[in-house]
Structures are given as C-alpha cells and as structure tokens.
C-alpha cells in the first residue's frame, strides 16, 4: 500500500510540527539520546569528576564528545529534557486517544511530567550548601560547597567588619592567564582589579626550585602556581592576583588571594589580606559564597559512634536548638535519614570532621542545607506513576494469563 505524500505547504507546517513533536519516533530518539548522554556522563565522571561531568553532559544544551579522533556534537541533557517534556505534553497528554484502557498510561505520563517539572524547579530555584558547627557553636550562615567570592571589608577601629563588598567568582572566573578585570567598586576609594584567577592553585615561594617553571607574576616573594583542577570540585583551592589602585593616586597594592586563607574548620579564623587606603584599614579575602537562613542553629550535642574495633562510622547525630526571633526555642534531633525541615530549608546530617579525628577528639558536625521548592515532588510523582503503571500492567498481565491459559502451549518446532 503506497503512503500518502506529505503535504509540505506552509499552511500545513503547524500540523507537521504537531505530528513531529507528538510522535513516538521522537520519543524513542530522545530516550536513546538520554541513555547515551547518561552513559557518557557516568563514564566522564571517572576522568573529570562529578561536577564537571554534570555541567558538560547534563546541564547543557549540547556538547562535543570525541570518539577517538572524531569529534561529535551531541544534544545535552537540558535540551533533551525540554524536548522530552514537549513530546510528552503534546503526544502522551494532548494527542493520545482518551480510552479507559489507556487511563493507567495517561496517569503515569502525568506523573513523569510532574517529575520533570520538579527536576526543572530544583535545577532553577534550589540552593544547597553546608553548615559546620562544633558543640556549643551557633550560626545562621550557610556556605556554598564550590562557589567562591572576593570580599572587601572596611575594618573599624574596634577591629570589626560591619559592611562588605562582595564579588561573586562568576565576575572573574572566565579570566585567562595574563588577563585582568576591574570590578565595580565605585563606593570604595580605590579600584579593585583581579587577574589570573584559577580554579585550583597554590602559592609557591620564588626561592623554591619549582618557582622558575611557574609563569606568573611575583608578589611579595610568591607566585601563584596553577594546579590541575581536582575531580572533586569541592577540593579545589582557587586563587588570583588582586590589585588595589587608590583613586587619589599613590602606589598600587598587589596581593595574592588564595582560598586556603579561608577557614575550613569551624574553629579556625580566616586570614584575610589587609591593606590601608586613605587611613582606612581594609581586609580582602577569597571566601566561600554564603547566605543566611531565617533562624539560628545551635549545636547542643554531637554523638558519633564507630562500629567496635574498626574506624567505620556506625552513626552520627546532632542535637540542635533552633531559635527564630520571638519564637520559642525548639530542640531537634538531626540524624542520617532523618533531616530537619523548617521554613523551607532542610538540614541533613551530612558528615563530620575534622578529617582523621581519633576516638575521644572533639568533632564538628556538618549539615547539608538545602532549599528546594520541589523537595517532595518526586515522592508525589512516584505515587502517581506507580498507580498508573500498576493499573496498566496488571490489566495487561491479567489479559496475558487468561489468553495463555486457554491455549495449547506451542512448541518450538512444527511437527
């Protein structure tokens, strides 16, 4: 039977687009590509680490993958998810024939859509960071795992910093070696110039034998050497050169800002670079991006136990007191698999430290702090999908058994 020729005239384009986006062929192709991207993204983590692989494969519209010497352009996870969403809405919800027999599939597709929307909301609107506290400490500040910023803080006569100028790393992380960028600091009596920012670095004294191989400017007897970025993005220690140019004239002030000057243990204090302009003392620091939650968390107790005779952690849980303005203080226990959800934030018992702590040492408790508007959507989506699929598959299974039981079982060969 010959197929009808396709009408390519402009008046039929809308119809053709509708057919294309609602087709099973498109769905199949998208699913094949998502599988491929997932596979590449999984294998890519071995060489590049999770964060880099996520950015390249899953949070992108397209990426280039080399298969041996051949570069191939492939659709990224973000593009595929958008296409899948459109395909499902048009094909599985709008176009599909609404029959009782297909109600299970319709429900399950709605559930998957919920999951996709939830994924988008999480990607676009959620924040995640951590809060680390020793017993007795309290805080309302959450720090990012990977995002850094430059802070410029005027120091008062009492030695305090009451106001800060914050420059997120996205303003200067695209700098190439030798490039510099002036940051917006119009309220300050000096210009702030950043150069040679790198994701993973270490300062090296010029007296060290290796220093001659480092192609970077020297500041106060040090150069900033660039390291290969770690596969674990959280392990990177960025660094950059900072130049302070007083607006009233005078010599520029040069410094190296290095992430290790920031504190990594809640008890440590940051070690900013300090300088004076117009008789005012300032501190400059490369610090982790941070934000606050609308309540204070005080760690009352941290219980940590190992399995007897081995170093493996058996359990760790924190008893905290949550305080918020005039509200009564509330004591909450946070442990593995039992987070605290409050005011849109969720506190998870994430880890502990310091690294290499021996039994009896004082330890800090680290919470992962997430703010995700779609936090519970996956659970609701699962319920919807599971209901839809159960309905559909049970019906099919029943039909299969009934059909099979009323037939003589066939044999592999004809007699």
């Amino acid at each position, binding site marked *: 039977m010959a197929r009808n020729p396709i009408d390519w005239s402009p008046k039929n384009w809308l119809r053709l687009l509708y057919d294309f986006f609602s087709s099973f062929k498109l769905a199949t192709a998208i699913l094949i590509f998502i*599988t491929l991207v997932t596979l590449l993204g999984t294998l890519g983590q071995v060489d590049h680490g*999770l964060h880099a692989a996520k950015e390249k494969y899953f949070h992108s519209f397209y990426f280039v993958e080399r298969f041996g010497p051949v570069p191939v352009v492939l659709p990224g996870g973000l593009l595929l998810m958008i296409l899948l969403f459109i395909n499902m809405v048009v094909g599985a919800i709008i176009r599909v024939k609404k029959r009782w027999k297909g109600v299970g599939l319709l429900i399950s597709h709605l559930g998957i859509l919920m999951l996709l929307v939830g994924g988008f909301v999480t990607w676009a609107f959620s924040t995640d960071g951590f809060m680390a506290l020793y017993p007795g400490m309290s805080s309302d500040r959450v720090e990012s795992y990977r995002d850094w910023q430059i802070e410029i803080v005027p120091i008062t006569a009492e030695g305090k910093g009451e106001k800060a100028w914050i420059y997120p790393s996205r303003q200067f992380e695209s700098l190439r070696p030798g490039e510099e960028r002036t940051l917006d600091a119009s309220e300050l009596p000096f210009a702030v110039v950043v150069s040679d920012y790198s994701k993973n670095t270490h300062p090296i004294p010029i007296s060290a034998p290796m220093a001659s191989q480092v192609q970077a400017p020297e500041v106060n007897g040090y150069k900033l050497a660039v390291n290969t970025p770690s596969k674990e993005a959280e392990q990177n220690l960025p660094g950059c050169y900072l130049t302070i140019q007083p607006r009233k004239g005078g010599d520029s002030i040069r410094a190296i800002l290095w992430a290790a000057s920031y504190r990594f243990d809640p008890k440590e204090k940051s070690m900013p670079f300090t300088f004076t302009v117009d008789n005012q003392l300032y501190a400059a620091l490369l610090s982790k991006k941070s934000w606050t939650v609308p309540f204070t968390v005080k760690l009352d107790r941290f219980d940590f136990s190992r399995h007897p005779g081995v170093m493996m952690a058996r*359990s760790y849980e924190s008893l905290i007191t949550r305080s918020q303005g005039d509200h009564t203080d509330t004591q909450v226990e946070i442990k593995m698999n039992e987070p605290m959800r409050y005011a849109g934030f969720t506190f998870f018992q994430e880890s502990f430290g310091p690294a290499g702590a021996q039994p009896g040492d004082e330890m800090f408790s680290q919470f992962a702090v997430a703010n995700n508007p779609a936090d519970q959507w996956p659970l609701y989506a699962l319920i919807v999908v599971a209901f839809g699929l159960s309905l559909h598959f049970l019906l099919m299974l029943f039909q299969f058994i009934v059909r099979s039981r009323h037939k003589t079982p066939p044999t592999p060969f004809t007699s």
Partner: protein
Amino acid sequence: MKTRSLITPILALVSFPAFLFGGMEAPKTTLESYTPWQDDTVKTFENILVQQDGRVKPINTVARFTLLQFLGKSKVWFQTESGESYRVDYAAWLLDVLFRPQIANQLPVFVVDDSEVVVQIGVSPKSKRDRYSYNELLKGRSKLAELGAEFEAKEKKYRDSEKDPQYELERVEGMILTLARNVSSYEYLIGQFGFARTGEAMVNEGMLPPEMVELSRRLNMVDMVDKMPEMTTAQLSQLIRQAPGESEDEKRFSAALRLFFFQASSAQGIHLFPPRDSDQEEWLSGGDLLFAGLASKKDREWTREQLVKIQALTQALKEGEKDFNTALHTFSDQQHSAAAALGEGTHSQMEIRLYRGQWFINALYCFILAFLLMAFSWMTPGTKVGRLLTFGAAILTLLGFALDVYGITLRCIIRQRPPITNLYDTVLFISAIAVLLGLFIEYATRMGVGLLVAVLSGVLGMFLSLKYEAKEASDTINQLQAVLDTNFWLATHVTVINIGYAAGLVAAVIGILYLSGRFAGLWMRRENPDFYRSLTRMNYGVICFCLFFSFAGTVLGGIWANYSWGRFWGWDPKENGALMICLWTLVILHGRKAGWIREIGLHVNAIMLAIFTTFSWWGVNNLGVGLHSYGFTEGVWGALYASWAVMAVFMLMGIPIWLHDTKERQEKKLKSHVGKEAHA
C-alpha cells in the same frame, strides 16, 4: 533410537567428575604424617566467638574467609610424605594454625597465580600456578616484605593521585602485594597464642635473636606481667629501644622486655575476650590483655584470669585431644555466657549452619541437575518420560529456589536486616527473583520456557555468588555504614531496584532463547511461528515488569537520597545506572509503538537491557566514583566484558534472522501479487 540418543549424554555425565578430577594430585608437603582433628573438637572450636570487623561472629566464619583469602578455597588439600592425602576444612585448618603451627606452616595454603611472583622473592617456583606453604616461602620472606612495602606505597600513591596511571600496579606487582599481605596476616595468626606456649619452640623464631628465642622457652609471659612495674605500651616501646646496660641481668631484662613486646604485638587481630564492663563494646585480643595488664595493676587480676584460659588450652593439648576438647568446651561456654550478658553471639549457631549447610552450593547442584533433566526431556518430547523429566526438573528448580531463599533468610536473621545490604547479597536475591519470575512464567504459559529461564538463572546466579565470594574472600555479613542504617529504605528501595535488575536479566535470557532458537531454525526450517510470537509476548511482559520495578526503585532511591544526602538526584553513577535501565525499557516500549522495534528488535534490545543492567549492577561499582562507595568493588571488568561479548554474539544473531524474515516477507508479497494478477 530414543534409548541410543540418551547414551551419550549419560556417559558424558558419568565421566564428567572423572574428567574434572582425574589425573590431579594433591600437593606434596614435608609432613611425615598428619593426624586430623576429631569432629567433636572442630565442632567445639568453630563455635568460639570472635569480634572482627565490628561484629561478634563464630570463629568458623573467620576461618572460612581467611582460608578463602589465602587459598581461594575452603579446604586445604595435601599429601604427606607417606603418600596419604587429606582435605582439611577451614575450621580444622585454623585449629592447626592456632594450636599446631609447626604443622600448619607446612600446609600449602598460599595460592600463587604466576610463578614470576615467587621467582622475584627468590623462592624456587613449582608450576605456573601453584600452592606454597609458609615454610616454602620463608626463604624469600625478607624480600617479600621489602617488595610488599614498595608496592603498598605505590598503591597508596595511585589512590592519592586520583588514579594516576603511572602509579598503577602491574599484574605481578599486585600479586606480590597480595601475597605479602596474606603472609603477614598468617604470621599474626601463628603468633596469636605464642605468649601461652611456654616451654615450646617458637614458630616464628627466625624473626628473633637467639637470646630471645632461648628466653621464650623459660619465660611465662602471663607471670611476667605480674612482676612488672606499671607502664603504658608507649613507655614499653620507648624502653626496648634503649640500649641495655652492661650487666647480664640488665641484658636479660632488656631481652625479656623485647620478647614481651614481640609476643603481645603478635597476639593481635583475633579478639576473643568479651569486655569486662557492659558499657564497653570492644572485645580484646591476647595482646590487648597483655598490654592492659602491664599498663594498670588493678586490671592484672582480670587480665590474668583471661590469659590463663588460653594457657590452659595449650597445656591441655599436650595431654591429648580429649583434654583439649574439654578445655575448649570450658573456654567456649565461659565466653558465650559473657557474650550473652552483653547481648552478643546469639546467632552464632545459625551462622555456623549458614556456612556448614552450603545452601547456595546445594542450590547450584539442584539447578544443574534440573537443567540436565530438562536437556534429557528435549530428547523425548511429548512422551511420558519427557513429561516425567520435566516434572523432575521443576521439582529440583523449586528445591534450588527454596535452598537459596533459606540461605537468604538465615543471613537476614543473623544480621537482623532485610535481604540486601551488600553486593554479594544482590547476587543471591536477584537469582531468587529471576528463578521465581521464570517459575511464574512457566505457571502462566506451560511452554517449558519459563522453567528453562528459571533453571538458567539459578545456575548462573549461584555460580556467580560462589565465584564472587571466593574473589572477595571477606565476610559477607558486614557492618553497615551510617547512611545504610535504615531497614525501611533497605527493604524498599534496595529490594525493589534489585527486582528490576532481575527482570532485566530474565528479559535477556528470553531474548537469547528466542534468537538462538530462531538462528538454529534457519537451518532446521521447522520453526513454529506461534511459539516465537508467544516468546515475544512473554518478553514484552517481562520488560514491562522490569520498567515498573526499575522506575519505582530508582525514584525510591532518589527519595532516600533526599533524606540522607539532601538532594533527590545528583547524577551519581549508581543513580545513572538505574536510570539507564528505566530509559532502555522505555526505548523498547516506545520504539515498538513507533514501529522501529518489532519481534527481533524486541529481543535484541532485551539483551541490550541486560547489558545496561549488568553495567548498573557491577560496572558502576567498579568505576570507583560517586557516593555509593559502600558498594565499590574491583577487578570485575574482565568478567563484565566477557559477558557483554557473549551477549553481543547473541544480538548479532538477529541480523541473519532479520534478513531471512525480510526475504520471506518479500517472497510472500511477490507471490500474493502474482496470485492477484493471475486471478485478475
């Protein structure tokens, strides 16, 4: 004709064990004779409790996995000089090691896969792959320690440098490191009760200067503690480093201190003594007790009481095995009472039953026998004998399934957890589910295919469980990391996702049966299209089943991750693996609707689904990245690649079948066209 067709397989079956074991000879030892332990003694011994890897377990378990680690087997096979051969099982072997180390040192328990390893340490090689005794390796002991330390450092660099290939161990280097570790572990075992063997020659005396060896025959370490001033282990360690004084007494005192330190340090690793206080959890080894007694005078009475128990055992052995058994009973009873007071050791008998029962090996035998019966039934199709053989196969499959489930149940009770807590458990569980799924298909269709699927899944699953256990050679009932300490999520997410894995694998088995059957049919030209259409319907159902459980398992995993790690989805390799299974089932189901996948395509893709399933099940654990570090394993790529190659061969069979079907369709079309024209 039918009788004659049965003769060849029966002959093959009968001659198989002879083929397998014929011509093999037990490794020769330097032992003049060997007296096996009496069963009673072994039974008493195996119930002694030990705390190891964070849990209290019978020493039977320790013995089993230690011997597996050294030898790759659970029995030592050897021949004495008089030509008698013995197979000594793990518990009896550990009895030898702890109480008759002079004999144990002559048993060939160290397997060396490449003779290059022993050549490098200066030991004369036997065959390419062989077993060596401790005494045979002694000549190269110092070189082995030197190379072991070198490769240990290299391995650490490899880990620290995030797997920089320049630090990756070569094959032989890895083997030397393993041998060095095994020999070192063995030395700890033979030195375990050295402190309690006053008056005997030391087993490891080659390590010590002659004055200490001589002293060890006269000095009772337990008595020595009483006479010593209080000092910590650090103080003792510092003292023995100082040069002794000039006088004989000072020299003797210094030698005694060094001997004490050596004996106490050697008696580490086997934690036999329950703590005195109920608020303590850590059990103590003989060495711990010696050091604890030395450190505090107020503890000496109690530590002495404990240490004397071991001395009583070694003394009783000198009187004969009957006295030894009685002393062992007394020790075991006292130990169990103390453990019971702490609420521990309650399932030790069950754990012994788990390993002595060999449920999984027996299940494998059942599945193999069932397969043979099925194979014979194919030679007599449609006859009473054929039906009887199929019935027998079904009963054996059910029995194999019951044995597998019984073993899983014992494991659940022993650790008070749902069926899956580690990778080994997944093998047992997935096998059980695959067998069950096969049996259900058989119940629904009565085509014989479901039974065959069940049998094949059982054989492969049980075989894999045995191979994996031998490869890992470590206790498979292990303690859980804090994040896994939740029976709810272990029972839901982990169980459900593994049911999905099982279905993915069953789909591949059906796919393989379809493709190999049809491939053979290309030549036999007697294939029944109805049969294969039924297989397709069957596989479609299994793929839907796989989708349901994989999807539910994946999302449940995400929800769990949201409770423990703070995010639903993190593109972690294990999460991605599960997602790929879901995606590929969806590719099959949507590809079918799109007209891209028909009968052959469905089965080819079902095999592809199994490739994704095995990648998710084993491959991602071997990548060594991600948050699911508790499931990491190593050294499975070879087996995985081999399995994927086999599956690829079956997938390729789809091509000639597709070409054949296409040609047949075209011929039919042509014929009908010609017929219509002729009719017109």
